[in-house]
């Protein structure tokens, strides 16, 4: 689960990391009030940032500076009116505009290949790390934290010297790097990224003296969904805009569902087989309307719920049911399909392929109920695509 920048910053702060103060505003008026306070504290400018869970906020006009309360209100109004990559902006973060001397990248990720938490640092901060990795991979320094001991001081120092952050900021860098790993462990995150980690100049308020400080200017955290049950408080950070409403409804029912753009609804047991079913629909010349895994051992009520989810999408013109019975019993699924069809409001052609446990009984039930069936997955995909084409648009 991805969480918004402001929430990620709260988690970093709770772990003792240096994050400059910020406010979150849902209206232009609130943004104005926040800007007024920040400017009164002796700051010259504020930054207003869209809080949406997609990359490229800056390019989309979702990050802007303002030098007065009036300007902050106008900028916030403009950003709150944006839709970035299909996601409406509902909140903005308002913070003092940092006087940045130097930007770095620092991130902790769950590295699947090495099965370690890997901490990465680069002197090329403020740009996408994927881009740095592609263009100048040698600019990224990496160390792997020990699964039991965590990130050690010497490892953090190695990163610091690697990116030229020795000297006065060494101690702070080590503490921040360890803090990232601590944050990851505390909340079961897959990713904790600070980009940029920046040296900022701060005045003492009178303008007489400036000091330099290493701070986390942005924050990105992705949480491990499997660990959410033991962090119930983090569920509140879920951004409803980041997922399709149908996906959320499915999650509540224990069905893995992802809404897509095509016209062939898919109902499958097992994630790998569900992806394969989508792929074969595409290969047969169709477009899948969704990914749907009813899970192992699904009973008829779950089948009915899955059918409702699929039919709720008006673009669906045919449905492909593909069940390889193992724990899941084919006859249970067949009964669920028959019951669901009896009460469904919209009649859509359906092709059903059930093999494995109790497939014979399933076949008998489906034939009696005059369902279109298929023996192989390839055949089922071809029939579903043909059926959707016959319905037309």
């Amino acid at each position, binding site marked *: 689960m991805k969480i918004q920048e402001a929430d990620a910053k709260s988690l970093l702060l709770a772990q003792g990391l240096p994050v400059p103060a910020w406010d979150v505003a849902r209206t232009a008026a609130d943004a104005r009030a926040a800007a007024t306070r920040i400017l009164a504290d002796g700051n010259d400018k504020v930054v207003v940032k869209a809080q949406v869970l997609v990359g490229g906020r800056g390019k989309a006009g979702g990050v802007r500076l303002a030098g007065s309360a009036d300007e902050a209100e106008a900028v916030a109004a403009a950003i709150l009116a944006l839709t970035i990559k299909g996601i409406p902006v509902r909140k903005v973060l308002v913070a003092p505009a940092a006087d940045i001397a130097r930007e770095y990248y620092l991130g902790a990720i769950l590295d699947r290949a090495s099965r370690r938490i890997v901490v990465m640092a680069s002197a090329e901060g403020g740009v996408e790390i994927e881009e740095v990795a592609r263009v100048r991979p040698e600019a990224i320094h990496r160390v792997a934290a020990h699964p039991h001991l965590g990130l050690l001081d010497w490892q953090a120092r190695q990163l610091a010297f690697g990116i030229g952050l020795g000297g006065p900021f060494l101690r702070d860098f080590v503490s921040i790097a360890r803090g990232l790993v601590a944050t990851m462990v505390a909340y079961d995150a*897959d990713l904790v990224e600070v980009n940029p980690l920046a040296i900022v100049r701060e005045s003492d308020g009178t303008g007489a003296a400036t000091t330099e400080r290493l701070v986390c200017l942005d924050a990105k955290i992705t949480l491990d969904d499997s660990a959410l049950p033991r962090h119930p408080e983090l569920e509140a950070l879920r951004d409803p805009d980041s997922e399709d409403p149908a996906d959320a409804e499915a999650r509540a029912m224990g069905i893995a569902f992802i809404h897509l753009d095509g016209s062939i609804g898919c109902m499958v047991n097992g994630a790998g087989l569900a992806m*394969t079913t989508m792929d074969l629909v595409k290969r047969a010349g169709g477009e899948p309307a969704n990914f749907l895994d009813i899970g192992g051992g699904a009973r008829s009520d779950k089948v009915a719920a899955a059918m409702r989810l699929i039919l709720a999408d008006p673009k669906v013109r045919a449905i492909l049911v593909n069940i390889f019975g193992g724990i899941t019993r084919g006859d249970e699924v067949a009964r669920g399909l028959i019951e669901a069809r009896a009460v469904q409001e919209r009649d859509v052609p359906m092709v059903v392929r059930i093999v494995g446990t109790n497939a014979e009984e399933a076949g008998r039930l489906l034939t009696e109920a005059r369902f279109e069936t298929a023996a192989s997955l390839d055949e089922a995909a071809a029939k579903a695509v043909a059926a959707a084409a016959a319905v037309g648009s």
Partner: protein
Amino acid sequence: MSILVGRETRLVVQGITGREGEFHTRQMVEYGTPVVAGVTPNKGGQTAVDGRVPVFDTVAEAVAATGANTSCIYVPAAGAPDAVLEAVGAGIGTIFCITEGVPALDMLKVVEVVREAGARLIGPNCPGATSPGRAKVGIIPGSIHREGRVGVVSRSGTLTYEAVQAMTDAGLGQSTCVGIGGDPIIGTTFLDVLKLFAEDDETEAIVLIGEIGGSAEEEAAAWAADHLNGVPMAAFIAGRTAPEGKRMGHAGAIISGGSGTAADKIAALEAAGIRVADSPTELPTILRTAGFRG
């Protein structure tokens, strides 16, 4: 020989008295797997599966009493890491963790302990392994198999059944079928299983079934290019139509930052000389074209 499970397997089932544990233990016993013990804390002294399997309080007791050398775990996610560590502590050499939904950071620690102990963990979130005609451990339906010489390794569950059924229907039997699990952090990787197959004198051809996310297929392909020359191989990758940034059911099946795509994996496999099927039904033909005469 077959790999991971076989005639030498003496299985202890952790979580044997739970709904899943009991159901699948029955299937394993009926398949002929030597299930010698079960473990559920506080149920020691009872029996499971109509009195056929003795239940112990701890894995250590089960090992002492029965000589169990392999474990299969059906314990719920909250207790699964501890169950793996208990098996390691009792000296079990091969541990299958079927449980889904185990937090990844727990697995990092567990995998390290398993590695230090010299044990092997398969999973979590895996369907187990079957050596047809000998033993099956986990939840793979026994009926789909046929004895033979093709090794199958997969990240998936029902997709594995689909592929295995296609092979069985085409007359291609299997030496061992292994599901390594769909999570980001797993104990045994594609590469580990390829190495085992490479040393197994009964495995003469290999099928690899991957999916989007991570780079384990690419690593396996690179190794196969150098070490499995002359071994007929075929592959299938699920998720060609999967969108970026969405977790496709399995915790590990996600394209992030443009990496882990099906296209990347297919390119890596093809570059290693491994043909990738467009549908699981094509796998037998590809193996035969690659020179497999089994």
